[in-house]
């Protein structure tokens, strides 16, 4: 105790330790800390609040819809005709439209994005990779409306030459172009995961006499597996939520079919259609967009949960 006093006294009034000032500042310091903490908490809380609010509004609005339409009819009905005199609200056509277009998109973006990532991360000379990456990011920056018309006016005519009798609106063209759109996302997230694999692992593999390809497939891929899976999930989520391309190129008629050559409406395309004013505000048909919106949120949530589970199961220790 007395030792401490003398130590503090030695510095005198202008102690190099500024002990007096440090002590008087204590309350100010604590106050400041608390304010900063509060601001940060509010910022973090906002994100959570918005998410909760969205879900709450969807649930509330959907509940007025489900007061008129039974959940069973909604989930199992195969006719979606909210504009008809005798409207029916079976959402399966919309769901199938979303699943088919997203699946086609995934078939394009999964393998292509993965291969691009593998090439950029493991095979391309660093200088070439530096040139290629901005192009890839450019692809991600193209507005989706441009993709939509690209599908309708370029890809569809091209496909019509291969598949005679293909309608002007079809899920195939929309799905393919949507796949192109999400390639950069899948490639970029996968590549980040592969780049994060420590060089020591690659060197270990090369030192055993492995080739580049063996190293990429047997060491880099398992080491970055969760990241690659996350990329796929992210890509599919984007495809499920994508609106403009399917609204323009797949047509907007709800059509219960798994045939990708057929036109169909997706959940998002239907929401756009309603939002553009085809249905009177407050009608049951209008309320239905909240119900299908809820389904969309649930699907996305489902994919994210799968992604998280994969992440946890195949977890690397870096």
């Amino acid at each position, binding site marked *: 105790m007395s030792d401490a006093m003398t130590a503090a006294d030695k510095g005198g009034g202008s102690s190099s330790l500024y002990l007096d000032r440090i002590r008087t500042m204590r309350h100010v310091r604590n106050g400041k800390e608390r304010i900063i903490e509060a601001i940060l908490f509010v910022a973090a809380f906002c994100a959570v609040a918005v998410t909760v609010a969205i879900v709450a509004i969807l649930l509330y609005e959907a509940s007025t819809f489900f007061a008129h339409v039974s959940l069973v009819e909604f989930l199992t009905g195969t006719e979606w005709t909210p504009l008809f005199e005798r409207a029916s609200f079976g959402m399966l056509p919309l769901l199938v439209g979303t699943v088919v277009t997203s699946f086609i998109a995934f078939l394009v973006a999964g393998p292509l994005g993965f291969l691009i990532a593998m090439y950029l991360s493991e095979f391309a000379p660093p200088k070439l990779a530096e040139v290629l990456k901005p192009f890839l990011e450019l692809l991600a920056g193209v507005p989706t409306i441009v993709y939509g018309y690209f599908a309708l006016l370029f890809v569809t005519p091209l496909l019509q030459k291969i598949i005679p009798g293909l309608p002007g609106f079809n899920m195939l063209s929309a799905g393919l172009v949507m796949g192109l759109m999400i390639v950069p996302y899948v490639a970029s997230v996968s590549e980040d995961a592969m780049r994060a694999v420590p060089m020591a692992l690659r060197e270990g593999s090369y030192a055993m*006499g492995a080739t580049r390809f063996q190293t990429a497939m047997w060491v880099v891929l398992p080491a970055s597996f969760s990241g690659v899976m996350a990329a796929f999930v992210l890509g599919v989520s984007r495809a499920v939520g994508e609106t403009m391309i399917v609204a323009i190129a797949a047509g907007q008629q709800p059509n219960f079919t798994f045939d990708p050559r057929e036109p169909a409406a997706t959940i998002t395309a239907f929401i756009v259609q309603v939002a553009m004013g085809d249905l009177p505000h407050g009608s049951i048909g209008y309320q239905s967009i909240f119900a299908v919106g809820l389904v969309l949120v649930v699907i996305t949530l489902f994919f994210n949960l799968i992604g998280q589970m994969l992440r946890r199961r195949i977890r690397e220790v870096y």
Partner: protein
Amino acid sequence: MNEPRKPESNAAIVTEPLKAETRKFNFYYGDNHALKNVDLPVAERRVTALIGPSGCGKSTLLRSFNRMHDLYPGNRYEGEIRLYPDDVDLVSPTVDPIEIRMRISMVFQKPNPFPKTIFENVAYGLMVRGEKRRSVLEEKVEEALRGAALWDEVKDRLDDLAFNLSGGQQQRLCIARALAADPEIILFDEPTSALDPIATASIEELIAEIKEKVTILIVTHNMQQAARISDYTAFMYLGELIEFGRTDELFVRPRKKQTEDYITGRFG
């Protein structure tokens, strides 16, 4: 087998058969002249230690032996590294680096097991060679794990991920991985610098056993370790090989002033 050794050369210090030898070996990282006229003999089935302060080029020299520098652009070898008994120059551009890496294994500073099972880690070198017969793989994996004194600890969990092992076990796994490939030389790059003293002791013990069968070249910044485990020691400084000698002589009667200063702890 080898050419007659000039009496003044480092090679003349080794009176037993050589496994490899660098001759007027130079290495460049781009414009950086990292190794200068290195003449290093490597005695067969002996431990040769490379010591020297950080940045002296000892790791660079070690990594030349399995052509690791080929992985990065802008690197250049000059001079020769002869590998015996077939007397090939392993840094020659006509020699396939993959063949060299299959003949010369490496154990790294930090244990770097692959994100695979224990079994797959050890079998890696054989899988790379296209070996798929389960019976052959099982036999080789067991032999290598026994060789690395790890078999008893892991024999019941060969299908566990290698990450679940402790640091010392991981490093022994990496040694097993190297052994399973039946290498002629194993290169050790500061293999115990990330390990605790007990794990270090077990690795050193292992090296003493392995050298019965395999030639060992080891980089270490721990002089006691070099003195304990090696038969020959090379002291390097600023990219040059300052002194090479039998370990028992070099540490007791260094011929060069720089060597003496380093091993007595005056710098480094």
